[in-house]
């Protein structure tokens, strides 16, 4: 089981060593990072093929000299800190190392352009090692340590060069750090109930108040990491200001994998859920879907738009886990993988666009499909995928979630009775996603080209390869979902289950491909190509040649609709942002307390004697 040791230690150690390298040799650092990521993937594949076991942490002590103090303590700790290698952790480890490879290829050339971001690659590798460490660790405290380091590296992967970006970085770490602290309570409660911290030995019922508290506090950690309502607010801010590889690496892929991994552990291994908790999770899930997608609709900044979608899609995964059936959990996990694929692809595409144009506002972009064709095609695949268009992977997993909900509705229970609400909201969310991605694609790649952008060229090959790989995987995951991938990947994790209803992904894909080919044939052979040319008029006046219709304009109608307008206004002022609300509360209490400190010595002396007399009165009079 040496792989388990190497796969955690190798990236961390190399990452720490990379700090020594000066920042000028970023490309060398990038190459080293790529090599290490590849090695990690290699180990991850080897690990994937092994039997599931529990490994003692004392495998690490082989690396340390026998007589030293550290040897003693590592082997001492090893007896109660263990690594758990089971299908779930194997799968997530594989996913993490895969995304690390993809994004390190992309960053080699991209990140060198980011002048003010120091130490990207060291933190990249530390993140990799810690993410794998968190997934593999069986002991909850060990898990928490790795989990906490991830929050810190997240903070270090965004550059704080101006007001907005440093505020985003601060907000991110406060929310993540807060959730980590809350998780300590949950873990301590688990330790109190079960007297062990090993996940594999736990099975806690959520019938007692303490059990529920433990579950909810750990849920906070999972939700914040994955970015589900109400702890999601850091994601849009982060993605708006962070460089594309950072966004693609952490909020889009790794944090989702980890957050959902924790959710899976909570729902399947550590706790047995009662139906009220199911209800809570489902409600939070659909709320996440709807709120985030509504906010995404009105965004003008495409990075922020993607950020809101990174939140909205989490809702589906949460719904999947809220169902609690094997089908639902498999659907949640499948959606998690798919989401990581297309969302990191989308961030990489957005990063390419941003690097070539320097603009992040949809109003200023347009018509880039001709100058960046490959990026366009990849982005189109990702966008269709996230919107749930068959036969792409996003559809496959969403379909599984719908199946799960319908199946779930057949059982008795409160949450089950409301199945139609969950289903309707999930479907509406999907439709709204499509709506906002039409805006994304049209705004960037279609329409009239902004004259400033004439000289834009396609990005280099190193930045294209990752996107193409991701796009191909998206397509194949969609095409062979039911036939190959789902049984192959998820049956070992959640056990065998039956699909509800009829859905043959390969067959449908074939049909879709055929119809597309048919359509193309008609388009090319017929005379549809001919169209009428005439001057365009608006309100009887002739329209200017140079005028452009920014695609965002259409969405302002939604923004200004009666009921929605007030909600949107409140949302923009931060009424629904748990971070801002708490901040106001804390700062106002600070103001009161600050006023009390008048700076007059006499007051301070009075406090002392007041405190003394209170103590005396309480204890000596009774």
């Amino acid at each position, binding site marked *: 089981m040496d792989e388990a040791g190497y796969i955690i230690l190798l990236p961390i150690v190399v990452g720490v060593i990379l700090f020594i390298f000066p920042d000028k040799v970023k490309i060398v650092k990038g190459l080293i990072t790529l090599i290490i990521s590849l090695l990690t993937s290699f180990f991850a594949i080897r690990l994937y093929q092994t039997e599931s076991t529990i490994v003692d942490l004392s495998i690490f002590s082989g690396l340390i000299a026998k007589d030293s103090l*550290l040897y003693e*303590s590592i082997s001492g700790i090893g007896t109660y800190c263990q690594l758990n290698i089971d299908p779930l952790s194997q799968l997530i480890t594989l996913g993490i190392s895969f995304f690390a490879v993809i994004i390190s290829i992309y960053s080699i050339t991209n990140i060198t352009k980011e002048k003010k971001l120091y130490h990207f690659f060291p933190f990249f590798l530390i993140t990799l090692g810690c993410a794998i460490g968190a997934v593999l660790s069986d002991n909850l405290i060990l898990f928490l340590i790795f989990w906490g380091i991830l929050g810190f590296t997240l903070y270090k992967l965004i550059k704080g060069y*101006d007001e907005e970006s440093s505020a985003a970085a*601060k907000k991110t770490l*406060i929310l993540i750090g807060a959730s980590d602290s809350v998780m*300590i309570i949950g873990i301590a409660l688990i330790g109190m109930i079960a007297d062990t911290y090993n996940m594999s030995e736990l099975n806690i019922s959520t019938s007692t108040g303490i059990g529920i508290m433990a579950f909810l506090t750990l849920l906070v950690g999972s939700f914040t990491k994955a970015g589900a309502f109400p702890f999601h607010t850091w994601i849009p801010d982060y993605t708006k200001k962070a460089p594309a590889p950072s966004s693609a690496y952490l909020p889009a892929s790794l944090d989702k994998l980890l957050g959902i991994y924790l959710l899976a552990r909570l729902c399947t291994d550590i706790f047995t859920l009662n139906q009220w908790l199911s209800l809570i999770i489902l409600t939070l899930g659909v709320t996440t879907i709807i709120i985030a997608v509504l906010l995404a609709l009105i965004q003008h900044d495409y990075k922020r738009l993607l950020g809101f979608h990174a939140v909205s899609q989490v809702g589906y995964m949460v719904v999947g886990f809220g169902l609690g059936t094997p089908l639902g959990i498999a659907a949640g996990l499948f959606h998690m993988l798919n989401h990581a694929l297309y969302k990191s692809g989308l961030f990489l595409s957005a990063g390419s666009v941003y690097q070539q144009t320097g603009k992040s506002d949809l109003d200023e972009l347009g018509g880039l499909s001709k100058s960046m064709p490959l990026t366009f095609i990849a982005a189109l695949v990702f966008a269709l995928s996230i919107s749930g268009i068959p036969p792409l992977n996003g559809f496959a997993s969403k379909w599984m979630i719908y199946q799960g909900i319908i199946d779930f509705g057949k059982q008795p229970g409160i949450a089950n009775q409301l199945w139609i609400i969950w289903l309707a909201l999930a479907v509406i969310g999907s439709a709204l996603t499509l709506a906002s991605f039409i805006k994304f694609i049209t705004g960037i790649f279609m329409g009239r080209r902004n004259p400033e952008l004439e000289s834009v060229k396609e990005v280099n090959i190193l930045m294209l390869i990752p996107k193409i790989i991701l796009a191909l995987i998206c397509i194949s995951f969609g095409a062979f979902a039911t036939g190959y991938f789902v049984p192959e990947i998820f049956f070992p994790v959640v056990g065998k289950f039956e699909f509800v209803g009829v859905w043959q992904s390969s067959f449908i894909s074939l049909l879709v491909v055929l119809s597309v080919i048919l359509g193309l044939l008609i388009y090319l052979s017929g005379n549809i190509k001919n169209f009428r040319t005439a001057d365009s008029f608006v309100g009887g006046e002739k329209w200017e040649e140079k005028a452009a219709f920014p695609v965002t304009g259409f969405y302002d109608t939604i923004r200004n609709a009666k009921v929605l307008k007030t909600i949107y206004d409140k949302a923009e002022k931060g009424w629904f942002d748990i971070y801002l609300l708490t901040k106001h509360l804390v700062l106002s209490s600070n103001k009161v307390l600050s006023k009390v400190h008048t700076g007059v010595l006499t007051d301070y002396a009075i406090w*002392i004697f007041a405190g003394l007399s209170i103590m005396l009165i309480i204890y000596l009079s009774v």
Partner: protein
Amino acid sequence: MDNLVILFVIVPLGSAFLIPIIGKFIPHFQKALSLLALLFLCTLILNYLFTGNSQCIIYKVAGWEAVENVPIGIYLVLDGLSAFLLLIINSIGFLVVFYSFSYMRKYTAENYFYTLLCLMIAGMNGVVLTGDLFNLYVFLEIAVIASYALVAFGIEKDELEASFKYQVLGGIASLLILLGISLLYWQTKTLNMADISHVISTQADSKTTLFIQIILITGFGIKGAMIPFHAWLPDAHSSAPSPISSMLSGVLIKAIGIYAIIRLFYNMFAITYEIALIITVIGTLSMVIGGLLAIGQWDLKRLLAYSSISQMGYVVIGIGMGMLILISNGDKMVASMAVAGGLFHLINHAVFKGLLFLNAGAIEYATGTRDLKQMGGLAKDMPVTSSTSMSASMAISGIPPFNGFFSKLLIIIAAIKGQYYLLAALAVLVSIITLAYFLKFQRYAFFNKTKYTGSALVKEVPFTMAFSMIVMGVLCLVLSLLIFPGIREIILSPAVEVLMETTEYSSKIIGL
């Protein structure tokens, strides 16, 4: 080793009085002497920790032996807890002296600075070593009078005002402590802490004892800046020269405030429920209110000073919870976990708060301001300060793998296991607030856009300052090893054991 115990007092005291005599004639003598003295003490205490097998050394000053088990001379007691504190005092003192080489160049009268610093260290070493109550008071006064003078070292408006307030409130504290000691003497006719413990356990006048205990808690509470006795701390700690702030916040309030509370209420008095409750409540108040006060500050050093109150709250909570669990016959493992968490946080706080004040000093040295609103973008110009302060900020906010995480983890787990859920929730809440204000510090000082004028002039601090900061920054990471089995037996466990054995301290010393 037995005879060497007294050196912890003699060496800094001797250096303190040699400096004004010889320092006039030989340049740099004061620096070399104080550095060497503290280096010597550091090696001495490390030697004890690693080879002494944590045995309790009792040193009888002037060789007065006990008569029929009644001690008559002054005893110095070096046990696990004292050694733990001595390690903190002397190692932080060493780094601070090193840091001061460059920092204090802008002040005149460097001789007096090092004299007072050595005096303060002598006082603190004395406080943690002595086994005699009145002797404790004397050493405590040596330490605080030196610190009064050091706070006023800048002799500007703010410094003088802070020093005056500190002196009056500190003086009240000393009075209360003296009053408590005299009442105790009245009751027991002895000053030796071990003997007092023995006598008090036989004659049970709980009301008087309780009165004395409350007086002493108030006195030491003022010295340790527990809310509501805290008001002098933000003024004094933010006005002192930065190395001294680092000493005051990192070491002094622990050595003369928290240590005394721990020692007296665990080892001298029998633990009672009332006192345990008072200590826990005061700790909680300090933790919460200190955190809330810190978050609105724009003066960097004031922010750090309030944060000291809050972090000391964690320590006191750990200690108080340990007492509560012990008195309610709870699980002794949980109690020792709470105490270990408290003590671990104490050493951690010494390191990271010391470092943060040194960082603040470095920023003030380079930019000439303490106002967060006037800083910005320093990360590029001051990489060492930036990265070390990042390490310290993360440590104090409890982000793994830095040391603060582990101590907070221990305290919270102990609180949950002892079923003090409210305390655990508050500890978590304050931990979040701590994170928030340290990220505020990071954001306004090191990120953002550059705001200070004359940006070309800002450069990294000289080597001696950078060296101390780097060492402490690395310590923030390395100290998390203290919790590991094998390593924890060297430093942390002996200190916890001393407290867990409670009144066995007295029987060990007077030999009953």
